[in-house]
């Protein structure tokens, strides 16, 4: 059975209930929304959108970070794997939130807090790569090396 959704940004589309991805903790800043559809299409590629099925006006632009940063790696903490019922790390889909700007040069990607999806269970979380050097606002186009002035918490 499919449900039809008239969205603000992506036009009208249909989705199946079994394709709905559940953000088990919500998404910071969008806590009241948990159910999203991953909308991928040639029209927006290489971007994709997480379209809320609870609020048709909300869609979050995302990107597979390894398309641009080849060495990008997100270590998924054990407790998050459990939360996602993720048995095999290689099954996980990793996306980063893109904050678009009219000027391409001001568009940024949040490499610090990737979205991790278990595609078979349709469960997702936004994790924080604490202690990493990835930035919350990495410029997208000038693929500058990642650096951050963020102070790293020390382990004692």
């Amino acid at each position, binding site marked *: 059975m499919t449900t039809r959704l008239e969205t603000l940004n992506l036009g009208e589309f249909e989705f199946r209930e079994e394709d709905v991805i559940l953000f088990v903790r919500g998404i*910071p*800043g969008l806590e009241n929304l948990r159910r999203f559809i991953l909308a991928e299409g040639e029209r*927006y590629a290489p971007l994709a959108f997480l379209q809320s099925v609870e609020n048709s006006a909300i869609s979050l632009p995302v990107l597979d970070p390894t398309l641009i940063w080849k060495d990008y790696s997100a270590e998924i903490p054990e407790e998050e794997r459990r939360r996602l019922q993720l048995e095999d790390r290689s099954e996980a889909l990793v996306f980063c939130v893109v904050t678009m700007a009219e000027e391409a040069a001001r568009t940024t990607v*949040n490499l610090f807090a990737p979205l991790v999806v278990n595609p078979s269970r349709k469960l997702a979380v936004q994790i*924080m790569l604490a202690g990493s050097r990835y930035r919350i606002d990495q410029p997208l186009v000038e693929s500058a090396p990642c650096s951050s002035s963020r102070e790293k918490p020390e382990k004692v």
Partner: protein
Amino acid sequence: MLVFTRKAGESLIIGDRVEVKVLSLDRDQVRIGISAPREIAVHRHEVFEEISRQNQAAVRAPIPSGDLLSRLKKTRR
């Protein structure tokens, strides 16, 4: 909010597995040590707020222009 007064070296226990210890004091800064099981995430509050703001900004941002997409497609290998 529960409020405690602690001296350097003293600590609090939250539940039976999380310990919050005041390590040292220096004018307007406090060093705090946290011992917690791995499954409990500990982050600076401002980092969480920054991610919330970024997510909200991403939702409000305009749909990409052809210019950005074409530059992205060139980047893609």
